Structures are given as structure tokens and as C-alpha cells.
């Protein structure tokens, strides 16, 4: 194994040999290696966030016809460092009546939950933290931990806005987990495994082509999971001031902030891994580092789309958000899972071309049907809304027959 082909594993092997040569037990070596891996990954992720924050501000600025950060360093690239410095040096404030444990635990859980995701992501053909036979489930489980952070923050702050926001957030997160899991079921069905590495390896055809609608659902619900525009009801300023983290400042606020950005990036990673073939690309098997580049590029594209959405879409109302989930995405995902399961059985994986055509057609049909239903409902509601209403006095409306 040469350094140039697979530098990371080369370093790992070297470190391992080094530690073993010190006479440590093999179990302990593994443990230490995991520790080092986790540390390095975490560090990288944290550093990445610094860059992401700058990137996002810059991009959104451009979308909104502004310049964005432009003072510190070339293209304002050091702006984030300045912000960091400021946050690090701020005083730790704990509000009156706050529940100390919950209040202080919340930011840690938030960041931790996001970082834990990175443990199972296959970065290249050879580099993956834990190739876990229930990796997809693990993703969901870890996501669930994030909710815990939000709810603790909301409750611990002893602030009714924070509390309300936390409720909203939890409602939103739990709700959108449902279509997300269902959308994840489809790649799992194609692969027959819940291991992420296996999922990536199976994507001779990217799953976004085999299951475009599932990809769409996953993308939408993962944005909702992150709580970004247009799903940022949690922090709708006019209603909830600033959301569940209103009472936080300084480093603790910073941790929420980091968790937010990191989460956004993580879902892009996941999307790229699950639907865009992850590290797969020409030559990635032979030169794993090339896979890393592919993966990064795909992630960047997804992330970029996410930012564009954030910059261009208005916020949902809470009922719209819930409607979208329960009345649209969830049923759609359910139908999709069932239909894909049947179609997948009928057209075996060996007939790749046929399978691709069938799946595309199926997705198209289902999506068109769902869209049609949705449109009709919406227009029906609009008609009701536009109907003239009695102004001066209230008249008991005659019971209408919804069947006609």
C-alpha cells in the first residue's frame, strides 16, 4: 500500500504499527486508534464549519445582491475567525431559574449528535469510521439525540419562547423523521443492507436515478430536520424571538451555531453518499483519494443547492409545514416504498437498464399523481377561500356535501 494510492490508510497502518511496537494490547490499540480517528474527524469538521459559515454568508450575499463579508482577509475569509474570537471571549451567562444540568447539557448534545453522524460516513472506498451493519438506523438514532438537545435547551432556559420553540422544533423533527426513514428505506431495499459503505458500493446506478422521488423526499425532510429555510419556523423572529436558543450566548450559543451549520453540511454528505453514489466515480476504486474528491464535489453541489433554497424561499407557516409532511410527503413516501418494493421484485437488479427505465417511469407516475392530487386539493381550498363570506352577520352555513 503506497502512500499515494491511499494516504489515510497508509497513515493509519503506520500509526498502528507504531503503537503495537510500543507493546500495547491489540484491544487498546484499536481503542486508541478510534480515539485518534474521532478526534481528527471532529477537528476537521469543526474547522470545516468555519469555512462553511463564511461560504454561506458570502453566497447568500451574492444571491441577495450584496457583497457579504469582505473586510477581513481576501474576500473576507477571516471574518468567521473574528466572530469566533468574539464568541470565545464572551461571558458564560446562565439565566435565573434555568435548570443548570439541562441548560448546559443541551449545546453539547446538539453538537455531539451531529458529529456522531460522521462516524459511519464512508469517505472513500477504504476510509470509514465504523462500517456498521445498521448504519442507516444509526443515522436516525443519532438524529433523535439531536432532538433531545433541542428540547433540553428549550426547557432548561426557563423561557416560554424557548419552550414554545422547542416544542415546535420537536414536533417538526419527529414529524419529518417519518418520511425520511421511509425515503431511506428505498436505497436500503435496493442494496439489501443498512451499511452505508454497502449502500455506496451498490450504486452502479446512482440511486437518485432509480428513486428520484425518494431522493427528493429525503432532501426536503433532511432540510426540515436541520431546520433551515424554508423550515426555520423554530426561529421565526416575529413569533419566537430567536427560537429555543434565545437564552444562550457566548460559546454555548456558538455551539448551537456550529451544530446548525455542521448539520446542514452533514445532510449534504449523507445525500451525496446515499443518492449520488458517494465516493464512486471513475478510478475511485483504485485511488481512494480520488473518491474523496468525488465525494467532496458531490457534497458541495448538494450543499450549494441547499444554500440556494435557503436564500430564495420564504418560510412555511406551521400548518403548511405539518400539512406538507403528513398529508403529502408521508403518504407519498409510503406509496413509493410499496411500489418500489414490488417493482424491484418484478424487475431484478440484473436487468439494470430495464430497472432504470421502470423505476423512472414509476417514480414519474407516482409523482405526477401525487402532484395532481395536491394541486386539486390546493385549488379546492383556494376556491373556498375566495368564496364571498357574509360580512355583517353570521349565517349558519348550510351543510355542504363534500362528495360532490
Amino acid at each position, binding site marked *: 500500500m503506497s502512500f499515494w494510492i491511499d494516504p489515510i490508510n497508509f497513515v493509519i497502518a503506520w500509526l498502528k504499527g507504531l503503537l503495537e511496537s510500543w507493546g500495547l494490547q491489540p484491544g487498546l490499540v484499536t481503542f486508541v486508534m478510534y480515539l485518534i480517528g474521532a478526534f481528527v474527524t471532529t477537528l476537521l469538521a469543526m474547522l470545516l464549519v468555519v469555512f462553511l459559515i463564511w461560504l454561506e454568508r458570502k453566497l447568500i450575499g451574492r444571491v441577495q445582491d450584496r457583497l457579504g463579508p469582505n473586510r477581513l482577509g481576501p474576500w473576507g475569509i477571516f471574518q468567521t475567525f473574528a466572530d469566533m474570537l468574539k464568541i470565545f471571549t464572551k461571558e458564560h451567562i446562565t439565566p435565573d431559574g434555568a435548570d443548570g444540568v439541562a441548560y448546559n447539557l443541551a449545546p453539547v448534545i446538539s453538537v455531539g449528535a451531529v458529529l456522531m453522524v460522521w462516524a459511519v460516513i464512508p469517505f472513500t472506498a477504504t476510509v470509514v469510521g465504523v462500517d456498521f451493519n445498521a448504519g442507516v438506523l444509526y443515522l436516525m438514532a443519532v438524529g433523535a439525540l439531536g432532538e433531545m438537545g433541542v428540547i433540553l435547551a428549550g426547557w432548561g432556559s426557563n423561557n416560554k419562547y424557548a419552550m414554545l420553540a422547542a416544542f415546535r422544533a420537536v414536533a417538526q423533527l419527529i414529524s419529518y423523521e417519518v418520511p425520511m426513514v421511509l425515503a431511506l428505506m428505498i436505497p436500503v431495499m435496493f442494496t439489501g443492507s443498512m451499511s452505508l459503505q454497502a449502500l455506496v458500493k451498490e450504486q452502479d446506478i446512482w440511486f437518485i436515478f432509480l428513486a428520484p422521488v425518494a431522493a427528493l423526499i429525503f432532501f426536503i425532510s433532511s432540510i426540515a430536520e436541520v431546520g433551515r429555510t424554508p423550515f426555520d419556523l423554530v426561529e421565526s423572529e416575529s413569533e419566537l424571538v430567536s427560537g429555543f436558543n434565545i437564552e444562550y450566548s457566548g460559546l454555548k450559543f456558538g455551539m448551537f451555531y456550529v451544530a446548525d451549520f455542521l448539520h446542514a453540511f452533514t445532510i449534504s454528505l449523507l445525500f451525496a453518499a446515499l443518492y449520488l453514489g458517494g465516493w464512486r466515480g471513475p478510478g475511485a476504486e483504485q485511488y481512494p483519494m480520488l473518491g474523496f474528491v468525488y465525494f467532496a464535489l458531490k457534497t458541495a453541489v448538494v450543499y450549494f443547492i441547499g444554500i440556494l433554497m435557503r436564500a430564495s424561499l420564504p418560510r412555511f407557516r406551521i400548518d403548511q409545514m405539518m400539512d406538507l409532511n403528513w398529508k403529502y410527503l408521508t403518504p407519498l413516501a409510503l406509496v413509493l416504498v410499496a411500489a418500489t418494493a414490488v417493482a424491484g*421484485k418484478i424487475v431484478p437488479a440484473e436487468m439494470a437498464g430495464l430497472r432504470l427505465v421502470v423505476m423512472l417511469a414509476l417514480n414519474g407516475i407516482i409523482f405526477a399523481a401525487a402532484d395532481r392530487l395536491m394541486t386539486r386539493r390546493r385549488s379546492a381550498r383556494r376556491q373556498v377561500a375566495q368564496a364571498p363570506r357574509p360580512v355583517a352577520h353570521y349565517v349558519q352555513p348550510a351543510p355542504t*356535501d*363534500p*362528495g360532490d
Partner: protein
Amino acid sequence: MDLLTNHLLTLILFTPVVGAVVLLFLPAKNIRVLRWAALAASLVPFGLALGLWARFDPSAEGFQFVEMMPWYPAIQSSYHLGVDGISLMMVLLTVVLTPLAVLASFTVTERVKAYMFLFLLLETGMLGVFLSLDLLLFFVFWEVGLVPMYFLIAQWGGTRRNYAALKFILYTMGGSLGLLLATQMIGVVAGTFDLTELFQIWPALNSGTLLGLPMATVKAVAFWAFVIAFAIKVPVWPFHTWLPDAHTEAPTAGSMILAGVLLKLGAYGFLRLVLPLYPLESKLFAGWLAALGALAIIFGALGAFGQKDFKRLVAYSSINHMGFVVLGIAAAAAAVGSQDAVIALNGAVLQMVTHGLSAAGMFFLVGVIYERTHTRDLTEFGGLFAQMPVYGGVLLFTAMGSLGLPGLAGFVSEFLVVRGAWPVFTLATALSMIGLFFTGAYILKALKMVLHGPLNERWKGKLPEMSLREGIVIAPLMVLMLILGVWPAWALDVINRTVSMISLAMSLWF
């Protein structure tokens, strides 16, 4: 996929119930959702049954897709399902007609939830009768099919619905009592309810007693109990008077199912139970049955010709048509083992299918016109062809299918029955031609009074043409009628082998 193939029948059987239960949890006010959900629930067994048909091997002997599980081990009753050619055709008929009937019921606005619930329950009852290979199970499903129909008539029926529903339930319940009695007797004497076993042991049973009665008496009692139960359901003249009332008062879709499938239960009972279990008795009494069949043909047709109520006319036509089924069965029982018997049975089973299609279509079309005019009195129509040309064409087509016009479904089966019955019951067959003649007479009478003649000014410009939904309901029936008439081989392929086997098995007892 194993689940699908190994338990296909169970799936077909119980998906309507599952759908019905799901319906219970939907909001009662959202009628649209209820309707579509019911339709979807009835389409699932349709799809599954198509799969069943595709996997069915028409050349194989005996029952296929057999499922057997202990159900009531204490009395040797088991959950035993299976299909052969006859039951497959009946299942197909049921699953085709039910979605159409549900679609036809989209005009029901009162208590839609209960209505659809009952409908889906009814479907399971009917399918259960066709699929079960256990006498007790057969009886259970027989009753399951009965009750929803009662409520459908009594709750959503016409003006005299209570009388009609009561007559229906009492009459058929009376028959069912006999069925229950016979089932019990057979179960106790033979020690099993399993039909495949009973086919082997019951006809051979000659010794032993039950409650001190000699076996011959027991068998005769059970035989007549069966015959009367099924004769009422078919209905064979003179047990037929419940039918015009029930049909006339039932809601449109109820009539469709009643005529399309429920009547077939009786004939199916003859084919599945009476003939194989009582080959000797059947042959002995076949003459009487043939006579009753011929009388049903003649008096059914005459009765229809004498009606002024459109729906009653169509109802009597069912008696007329089912008479051919009875005649065919009687001929098969008498000429057991010969080519005539096979042809007659083929004809009888095919007639069950074709009558299911045409009668359902006719009842639906009566419903269509009734919804527009709120009358069924033939004298109040007239000249509607000009108002509703598409409806007129469709009615003409369906009526011709019912009349047995060659090229449409009814003819093939009628010809086969006549061919099969002629050498056996020459006189009855010849007399039944009177009925066949009057079939033409009443059909033309209906057409003449509804479509032709000067337009009744009352309806001028008031009758909208058939809607798309109505078109969708009737179109499959029309297509099937045409296909069966032009190319009946695909259906007969399925039936032929089975009825040959039945006939052969019966002949072994002589």
C-alpha cells in the same frame, strides 16, 4: 414473494375485509375519500385475482393454490381454501363486479361509510363461498354474504325496502337452515368437514346410523336440505318470488351484485356440493330439477314480459337465465359421465359468468335511468334514444347480451346448455324454447318502451347523457360480454377441465 404465492387465496379473500376495517377509521363526512378508498380496496383483490388467473394451470387436475390450516380442530374443520376452474371463474366474476358496483355506488350519499363497509364485507362473503373447501367454512361465508345484503336492501333500498329485505332474509335464511342442518349431519356422520375428503367418503357411505335413523334417510334429508337451500338462492321456480322484490328495492349496485354474484352462489352450491356428494341422488331427481329449470325459464320469461316496472322486468330475466343454469346442471346430473354432461356443465358454468355480466350491466343501466327520472315505470319512458344516444346504444348492447344474441356472451352458454340438455331432457329443452322466445319478447319490450317510440315530452332536454363514471362502469362489462361471445375459449379452457373432472368423478359411483 412466497407469501404472495402461498397465500394468494387468503389475500384475495381478506383484503376486502381489511379495506372495510380501514374504512371504519376514515372520517364519515369525507364521502369522497370513503368512496375512493372502497374502490381501491375492491381493486386490490381484483389485481390479485388476475395474478391468480395468470398462475392458474387449466390443465391440472383438482384444486390449486390450496391452503390448509387447522381452524376448528375439535370438530375436524379446517381453514381449507382452493380453486378449480369453476371457482376461479366465479372469483373472477366477483372481483370484476365488485369494483364496478362500488363505482356505481358513487351516487350514494347517505351513510356512505356503512354502505361501503357492508359492500366490502359482502365481497369477502361471496369470495369465501367460492374459495372454501371446507363445508363449515362454506356455510360461514354463505351467511357472511347474506347479512350485508340484507342491510343494503333494508337501509338503502327503495320504497318497499323493508318488505323486500325481510322477504329476502327470511327466505334465504330458511334455506340456510337446511344448509346448516345438512352440514351438521354430514360433519357428524363423516367425521370431517373437509370437502376433498368428503368427495371420497360421503357418496360411498351406506351403513351406520345417526340418531337412530338409517343412513339412506340421513343422506336423503341432507340432500334435500342442500337442494332447497341452493334452489332458493338460485332461485329455482317456485322459490323465486323473493328475487323480484329484493332486486326491485335494492340499490343499483346491490342489484348488480345480487344478480351478478349472489345468485351464482346457489348454482355454485349445486356444482360444488350436490353433484359430487350425491351423484346417485342427483341422477335420481335430475328430472324434477330439469322440470323446475324449464319452468323457471318459461315463467321467468313470461313474468318478465308481464312487468311494467323496468327493474322488475330485469329481475325476472335473472330467473329466466338462471333457469338455464339449473337445466344444465340437471342434464349433467342425469347424463353423468357422458359428453352431454360435460357440455351441459360447461354451458351452465359459462352461463353463470355471462349472466353475471349481462344482469349486472342491465341493473346498472336501469339504475342510470332511474337516477335521472326517478321512475321505473316503463310506460313513462319512450323515445329516450334521441335524448341519450350513448345510453341507448349501451342499453341496446347490454340488452342484446342479455337476450343471448350470438356474438355476445349469453349465446354460447345457452347453446351449450341446450346442446347438453337436448338428448337428456328433450321435452324440457324443447319447452324451454318458449322461454327463450319470450326472452326476446321482454327484452324488446323493454327496449321498445324505453328507447323507441315518440319522445315522452316530460323528459325533453332533461336527461343528461351518461357520465364518464357510468361509462367506466359499463364499459368493462360490455367488453367482457363481447370477448366472451366472440372468443369464449379462454373462459372455457379454464372451466372445461374442471367440469370434465367433476363429471368423471361422478360417473365413478355408478
